[in-house]
């Protein structure tokens, strides 16, 4: 096991990793940017070190700053959290060149899965059903138009790098494709420093289902069930749950089995998530793999009782998984609500400000992962995630009831949050009946969605 880990992230995930380090008895140093000096992970850390100014490119995204911080504080491993440098194979390579361990897949594994388009073909060759799409990256507009015509509209333009919905556009006509492709290229370039794009067939009524896997260095892997992330707004997940209400237990088991078989065969290592679109017939299509710990990992932790961050650190330290598939028995149902500093009344405009009062809900099956505290100033420089409220119950109905009560109990004064959208979702028939699709919020419009919930 490592002696000391540098946590190169902020907010709730820095806190989450810090807690995992405590569990493992490993010292942790939190690397932070200037505006995060007073943040909770910095306060609770064994040590903290300022690595740069508010601009993430000079702090959380600066490989030299992060690695230098790890060296001067005597760390032997770096946990990148999610976002920032978490899936950057060049960073992982440089970390290793400095005799440090990157907590995540080794650089060559990250490299193998770096291209989303290439990964789709790789895992397809190991028996995963994949979404129809372009072969290779789009060279130019002409190539894009040819490929789109071959796949059939509507198509989704996607950047090869990154995630979080940036640089993604769904288009229904060649004309839309031509104009959207420029926007996507520039968004992808600025967000990920890479403007390569590819196309995927767009399924209008689809559900987003993802399989959590964990594979150790010795090729032993297990799946930890799936999560359903169909509640989205403009390709951003806002609520996740498990198990998925979209598939039968037999179909879920088969999907998870095929997923773990394919990634182990393809040489994956560490925790990861395989994302699928599930069409109206319940047929899954692989779209991409996330080589990191994900925001919604607590859903799986609540279902399985397994600490995924601890598992991730153990695997990176070279420990065998020590878990057989039969030992993993997901229980009940869990729902995660992302609490964001966003104003649903104003098109989810992100906000900042000072938390005046904060109260995290409690009770059976309730978990709150958040870095908030009264007096905390939410800086305007980073993403809007304030925390995650997770509700577990022995069945979906109980999880929903507990979630509803917990959302009512949550107090975050001083910052406008998106809590109202969660309450509206829990009042929505499509959600309650387990048939929400990824396009529902955008099709109905968030304002209309909120208004409908208010009437009911």
């Amino acid at each position, binding site marked *: 096991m490592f002696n000391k880990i540098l946590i190169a992230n902020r907010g709730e995930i820095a806190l989450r990793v810090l807690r995992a380090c405590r569990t493992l008895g490993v*010292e942790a140093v939190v690397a932070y940017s*200037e505006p995060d*000096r*007073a943040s909770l992970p*910095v*306060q609770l850390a*064994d*040590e*903290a*070190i*300022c*690595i*740069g*100014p508010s601009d993430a490119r000079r*702090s959380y995204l600066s490989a*030299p*700053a992060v*690695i*230098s*911080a790890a*060296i*001067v*504080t005597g760390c032997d491993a770096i946990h990148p959290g999610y976002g920032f440098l978490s899936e950057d194979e060049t960073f992982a390579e440089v970390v290793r060149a*400095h005799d440090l361990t990157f907590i995540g897949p080794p650089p060559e594994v990250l490299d193998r899965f770096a291209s989303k388009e290439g990964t789709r073909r790789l895992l397809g060759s190991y028996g995963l059903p994949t979404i129809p799409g372009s072969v290779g990256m789009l060279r130019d507009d002409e190539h894009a138009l040819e490929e789109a015509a071959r796949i059939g509209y509507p198509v989704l333009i996607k950047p090869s790098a990154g995630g979080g919905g940036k640089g993604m556009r769904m288009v229904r006509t060649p004309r839309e494709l031509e104009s959207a492709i420029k926007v996507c290229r520039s968004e992808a370039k600025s967000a990920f420093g890479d403007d390569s794009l590819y196309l995927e067939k767009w399924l209008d009524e689809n559900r987003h289902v993802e399989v959590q896997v964990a594979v150790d260095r010795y090729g032993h892997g297990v799946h930890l069930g799936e999560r359903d992330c169909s509640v989205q707004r403009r390709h951003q997940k806002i609520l996740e749950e498990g198990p998925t209400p979209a598939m039968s237990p037999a179909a879920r088991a088969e999907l998870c089995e095929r997923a773990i078989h394919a990634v182990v065969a393809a040489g994956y290592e560490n925790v990861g998530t395989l994302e699928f679109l599930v069409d109206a017939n319940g047929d899954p299509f692989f779209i991409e793999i996330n080589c990191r710990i994900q925001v919604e990992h607590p859903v799986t932790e609540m279902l399985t009782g397994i600490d995924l961050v601890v598992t991730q650190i153990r695997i990176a330290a070279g420990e065998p998984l020590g878990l057989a598939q039969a030992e993993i028995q997901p229980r009940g149902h869990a729902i995660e609500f992302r609490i964001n500093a966003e104003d649903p009344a104003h098109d989810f405009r992100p906000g900042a400000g*000072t938390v*005046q*009062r*904060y*109260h995290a809900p409690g009770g059976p099956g309730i978990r709150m992962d958040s870095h908030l*505290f*009264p*007096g905390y100033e939410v800086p305007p420089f980073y993403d809007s995630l304030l925390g995650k409220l997770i509700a577990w119950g022995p069945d979906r109905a109980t999880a929903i009831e507990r979630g509803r009560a917990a959302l009512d109990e949550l*107090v975050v*004064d001083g910052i406008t949050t998106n809590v109202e959208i969660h309450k509206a979702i829990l009042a929505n028939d499509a959600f309650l009946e387990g048939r929400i699709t990824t396009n529902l919020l955008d099709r109905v419009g968030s304002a209309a969605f909120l208004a409908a919930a208010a009437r009911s």
Partner: protein
Amino acid sequence: MPEDPSAARARTDGDAVTRTGDASPGAPEGGDRVADLAGIDRLLDGLVPTLMAKVATLGVGELEVRQGDWRIRLRRPIGGPSQFGRRATDRPGQRIHPGHEGLGAPATPRPAPQGGSALGGGPATNGSGGPALAAVGPGHRADTAGQGDEPAELPSAHGPVATSPAVGVFQPGAKAVGGTRVQAGDRLGVVDMLGVPQDVLAPADGIVIGVIVEAGTAVEYGQDLVHIEASGAVGAR
């Protein structure tokens, strides 16, 4: 129910005075420790408030006083104190003298350095080892109580300070010597970040009055490195 904000502040101010566990050469051991603790108490009760007032009224950036085996150094933070160097032994649960938490908050009517003032210092015999007295905690939170005071007052009361441009290892240059006249933009040294030197620049014209960090020390981004007395500052007050 929601926590009382003042309770949270007391926790987050974190200005407890702590001793690091790594016994530096001059650090007293065993029975001396009790005497030490009593000594710290005396320092905190008597000397520190006086020093804080002095720092505020003299307009200097740093003040050091020796008493017995103890040396206490008070330094005004710029834009919040440095956090680097906080050690495992500084965890809240291991702090001693919790009653002194919030020391940096303006408890006295006199102007005082705010929020987690970087209480440096160490055994008189050890200038380079870990500080025996170290302020821990971000301290920045204390600012919420008196927002506006610090930014308004500090720049005038505090000489310019060259800060670290990066996280790495500090190497002072030829001009980082007390008494040297420097101009804004002069290179006072470098911080080596993964083998790439990043220049430490003088923020203003003036005279170097002290190098805070020794050569070869690991520093964080924004850490105070070299104090300068600005030209014209003398006599202006």
